């Protein structure tokens, strides 16, 4: 079975349990934090993802981390299951599928808001509100600095793009000149 299918199956099972216990956001943030932690430490990354290490060794590491960070029981359990079933390498894909499903259930969207200069918090909030009004869904924003935009703002939600950058205006002008 491909990693994508495996990830979707695990994500569906996890979202069902997390929804029942109202722990979707908690599990998502804890798994995300776990991944960030593992990717931030090469030694830990080797132990968790390298098949040279045994299931017992990995389980011991996950148990140790769980005690020190005090994760939710569901997060702890899913991590142990993934280690035991040798599916821990699919954690990133599982988290992505889990987040997508969680967003769908919560009726929310994830937006990447790019600007040439950093946005103020007020402005970011205004933009998020504008996007929520436009899409009719809750928007989770992730900001990004892109100097190629020259000036202005660009928001992308999946395949939907709202481009208010100077670069877009210049490109439109160029298109009109050609046509």
């Amino acid at each position, binding site marked *: 079975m491909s990693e994508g299918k495996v990830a979707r199956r695990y994500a569906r099972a996890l979202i069902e349990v997390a929804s029942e216990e109202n722990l979707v956001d908690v599990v998502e943030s804890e798994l995300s934090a776990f991944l960030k932690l593992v990717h931030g430490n090469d030694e830990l990354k080797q132990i968790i993802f390298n098949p040279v290490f045994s299931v017992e060794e990995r389980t011991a590491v996950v148990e140790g981390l769980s005690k020190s960070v005090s994760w939710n029981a569901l997060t702890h359990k899913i991590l142990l299951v993934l280690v035991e079933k040798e599916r821990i390498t699919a954690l990133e894909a599982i988290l992505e599928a889990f987040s997508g499903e969680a967003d769908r259930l919560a009726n929310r969207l994830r937006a990447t808001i790019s600007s040439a*200069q950093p946005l103020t918090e007020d402005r970011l909030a205004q933009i998020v509100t*504008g996007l929520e009004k436009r899409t009719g869904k809750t928007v989770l924003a992730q900001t990004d600095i892109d100097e190629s935009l*020259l*000036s202005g703002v660009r928001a992308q939600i999946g395949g939907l793009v709202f481009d*208010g950058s*100077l670069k877009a205006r210049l*490109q439109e002008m*160029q298109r009109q*000149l050609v046509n």
Partner: protein
Amino acid sequence: MLALRKVLFGITFALSGLSASSALAAGGGHGEPHVTNWFSLPIFNIELSESIHAPALGWVMVSFAVYVGIIVFIMSKKLPDFLAQRSELIRQAIDEASEAKKEAEANARKYEERMAKLDEELKQMREDFSTQGQTEFERIEQSAESAAQKMQKDTEATIDAELQKALAQLQTETAKLSYDLAKEQLEKSLNASDQARLEETFLEDLNRQAQA
């Protein structure tokens, strides 16, 4: 057939008689002719020298008659067929020659007639050639005209296409240059208020779209 055989026998006997007469004449020399040797052969009782001067004329005549008889016998069987065939061949040759003559005469008449009409035929041929030449000339002229029109049309289309292509390239180049120039100018002159203004515009657009 029988008549022929009789004739041949007659000729044979006449020749035999002639031979005998000759032999008698050859045997004389002193007065009346006489035969000195009729049937005596050297192997019997006549001296060798005498037999040379007086051959056995009787045997000569007998052998000649036998010879002539054999020839007559053979020829009487073969000759009529041979002559009949020969006659048939000659008749056929005559018939063929006659046919050829008739044909030659007919051809001669035909050619004479054609010779008589030659001027008219030549005139007709000249007219035909002239008509054909004119038709061919017109066809070639029309074909050339059509080809020239097509070439002109194709050339015009090519020129038009090239012109459009060049124009499009020029527009693209102009647009790119304009873009680069505007970008360069804007990069120099952009400030915080421009960013704020664009943010405002972005929000206005979003709200307008939300209301629509």
